[in-house]
């Protein structure tokens, strides 16, 4: 007999939903968390960054609303208060998760877990006492950490995103290594608060998962915000000297007061001793799983960032966690294919399903249907005319296979697109659905009409 039916390792956005779902299904469940309930998302990722971005946007609006007839003189900000507010939000949400686990009867255990066998783990608790636990099913949801390449100097001026969130004040000049999603989000936040930001990206452009037209809008707006992009070459010879960080990009020396490293994330699999359970790990340290999240060991599942090919998003992990818990009781649930991504840059970006770039790589013929916000009443009224929505459609059936949106509220707007893509709607259903006026979401309907050249609010082509 085992101590538990299900043990979940890691209480992030993949782990705690898995534990709660297992408990809902009548399983005796425990969850082991080594650090903070809510994981990266809640403590050092999605939630704290969005809290700070909200503060930065408030400041930016307060300081730049003359065109709207609002003039505020002497607008200032206190970054210390902003981070306090952030800490408060995080604390409240983390407490909420522990409450949810408790109300569902999940035993929460604090400590670092490692495998002792396929059905057995040991947990080193904060008091130093090791606890041995066994379970019929184990769900690995241990997440990932920022990658810190070895060539970087070990210095307090060189930090990952997590350490950056604990700063009491922003630097005057911020150097960011990596123009991916995380690098760009932090760049926007800091730039909005007046920091001089330089982003160095080795690839030819920032956030390469985006289609080129979307990237162009983002890059232009971020440059207008004062962000400098150095792309297409690496930052080399990074040194910390005389209270500043400097490095070489092509032939040019770039400096900053701090270097934020945002070059990707590493799976937290090494410390788990997976080999003792017989779980296969690939060369990148991630765990291959089937469409239910099952590893090569039938009683062990893996969800979230440490899964091979994972999209590394909180909501993807949550869905995988729920599926794994359901699979553990023998249900036929499978991981969803369509997962929207949200990027909280300025302007925001949302994407779901197939991109134009992916379609090209697959050699799949697609037709796009685009509508720019500049032609939309609400966008004009709100002074948010940058950006556009885009459907990526099957040219024959008009099925919407993917969508991208860049502009104000893009992260909210993508929800409608994800619903449409998952349910295999065509441009006709979307075009025929009445969208309220005046709203940003009308853009989806207008874009759908352009598929048949039947858009009312664009000049005839």
């Amino acid at each position: 007999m085992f101590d538990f039916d299900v043990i979940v390792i890691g209480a992030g956005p993949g782990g705690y939903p898995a534990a709660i779902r297992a408990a809902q299904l009548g399983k005796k469940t425990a969850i082991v968390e080594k650090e903070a309930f809510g994981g990266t998302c809640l403590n050092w990722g999605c939630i704290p960054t969005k809290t700070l971005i909200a503060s930065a946007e408030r400041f930016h609006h307060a300081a730049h609303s003359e065109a709207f007839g609002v003039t505020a003189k002497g607008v200032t900000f206190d970054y210390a208060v902003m981070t306090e507010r952030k800490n408060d939000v995080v604390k409240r949400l983390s407490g909420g998760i522990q409450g949810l686990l408790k109300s569902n009867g999940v035993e929460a255990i604090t400590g670092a877990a490692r495998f002792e066998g396929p059905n057995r783990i040991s947990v080193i608790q904060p008091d130093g006492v090791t606890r041995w636990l066994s379970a019929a099913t184990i769900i690995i949801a241990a997440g990932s950490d920022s990658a810190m390449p070895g060539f970087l100097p070990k210095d307090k001026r060189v930090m990952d995103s997590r350490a950056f969130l604990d700063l009491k004040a922003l630097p005057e000049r911020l150097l960011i290594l990596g123009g991916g999603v995380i690098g760009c989000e932090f760049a926007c936040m800091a730039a909005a608060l007046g920091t001089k930001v330089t982003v160095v990206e080795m690839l030819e452009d920032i956030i390469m998962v985006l289609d080129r037209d979307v990237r162009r809008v983002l890059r232009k707006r971020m440059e207008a915000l004062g962000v400098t992009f150095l792309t297409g070459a690496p930052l080399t010879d990074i040194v910390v000297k005389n209270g500043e960080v400097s490095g070489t990009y092509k032939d040019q020396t770039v400096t900053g007061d701090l270097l934020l490293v945002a070059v990707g994330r590493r799976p937290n699999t090494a410390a788990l001793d997976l080999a003792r359970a017989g779980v296969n790990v690939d060369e990148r340290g991630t765990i291959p799983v089937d469409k239910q999240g099952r590893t090569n060991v039938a009683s062990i599942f893996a969800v979230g960032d440490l899964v091979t090919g994972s999209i590394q998003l909180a909501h993807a992990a949550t869905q995988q966690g729920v599926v794994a818990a359901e699979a553990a009781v023998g249900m036929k649930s499978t991981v969803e294919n369509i997962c929207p991504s949200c990027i909280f840059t300025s302007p925001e970006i949302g994407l779901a399903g197939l991109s134009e770039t992916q379609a090209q790589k697959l050699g799949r013929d697609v037709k796009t249907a685009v509508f720019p916000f500049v032609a939309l009443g609400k966008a004009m009224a709100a002074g948010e005319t940058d950006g556009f929505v885009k459907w990526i459609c099957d040219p024959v059936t008009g099925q919407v296979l993917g969508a991208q949106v860049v502009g104000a509220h893009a992260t909210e707007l993508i929800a409608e697109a994800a619903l449409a893509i998952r349910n295999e709607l065509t441009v006709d259903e979307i075009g025929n659905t009445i969208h309220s006026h005046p709203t940003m979401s009308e853009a989806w309907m207008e874009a759908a009409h352009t598929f048949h050249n039947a858009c009312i609010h664009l000049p005839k082509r």
Partner: protein
Amino acid sequence: MAQVVIFPKLGQTMEEGAIVKWLKKEGDAVAKGDILFEIETDKANLEVESFFEGVLLKIYVREGITVPVNTVVGFIGAAGEKVPDQPPAPEAAPAPAPAAAAPEAPTASPAPAVPAAAPAPAPVAPAPAATPAPQPSAKPVVQPAPAPTPAKRLVISPRARACARAACIDPARIKGTGPNGRIVEKDVLAFLSAANYDALRITPAAKRLAAEHEIDILSVRGSGDGGRIMVEDIERAQRRKPVTLSRMRQIIARRLVESKQTIPHFYVTVKADITDLMAFRADLKAQGRSYSVNDFVLEAVILSLEEFPVVNSVTDGVTVSWRGDVDLGMAVSVDNGLVVPVIRAAQTLTLAELNAQAKALAEKARTGKLLPDEMVGSSFTVSNMGMMNVDQFTAIINPGEAGILAVSTGRQVPTVVNGEIKIRTMMAMTLSVDHRIVDGSVGAQFVNAIRSKLENVELWKALV
């Protein structure tokens, strides 16, 4: 003046083939040596080059249609030059292979004046006895690729048909109540109601796709939430529709059936101890001389065939003829098929020459570069699945031959040697022979001859 492009005869036995892909479109500029199209014969896919320079003015034979060799498939000439809408009759004289050329192109008025002379079929064309066409314009002897025979013509009203189409169902399954069993709209509606059609759930895109491919959605199982039919389900149904086999597969199918139906197969299996041979091969390799296990098997077969001429013979049930040379067929698996290139007069080759030829032919086979003539006339075949991790299998005799040897994977197994258990590498070989001319005892002796040769390292030392 415009030049005709003909479907080339690329081998002595080649009678027909199909263009699988045109690489030029009508109106494209063509240079000498440009690849015009790819053809599929019963043996292989081959690229056909242009012998002319100019513009591809006309394509007569579209992709996928089987035509006799020398059929006119298009015209190349100067831009704007007029060419006939209908292709002229196939060239009677076989063009020199592989020339895609015709000696003289017809002029802009190609139609022969006398109707009776018009459809004269080319001698090489396996065309049905052509009935003279009443029109003076000559029709090419074109045989469409075999397709599933169309269903009996459906008697249905236009309204009923539209109704069935809108519902994405196949009206053929509906019983008509109109005159002469004609299906009327009421029948369709009754059928939909009886089939509980309204309860069917399908995504908009899936329904659109089903209409596009004429898939009956009542026959599709839904995999989405609550059994909803998704695009993936329609795509799966689409893949269930019959697809015409490639020419190569059709030939394979025909020949295998012919073999199994007309040749009484007899099988005998032995296991050869190739431990010493493997060690010898490793020694050779260390000296920079690389041989495959298959080379040794082929050579052992060649030597044994010389000893047992009846296995290198062919019978029609009345007579038996010795084949003389060992024209050794070597089965090579290729994408979606199997080809058997032939090593001619293999008994005259040294082991090194055999190795070189086998390697070259296998490479040509895998890259689709074998010419049809390189794949006919074998007198015995070896099928080696040593790389496929198999214990034992039996092969089907190539019609026209008396036997085939199926070679399996060499494995380390505990084996009794001089009363002691040793780990030895054993390789199973199964001989299939035509029992009409090869008796069991001869088959057994023959396959044992191969075995003893493989086990005799002194022999190989003498041969390399």
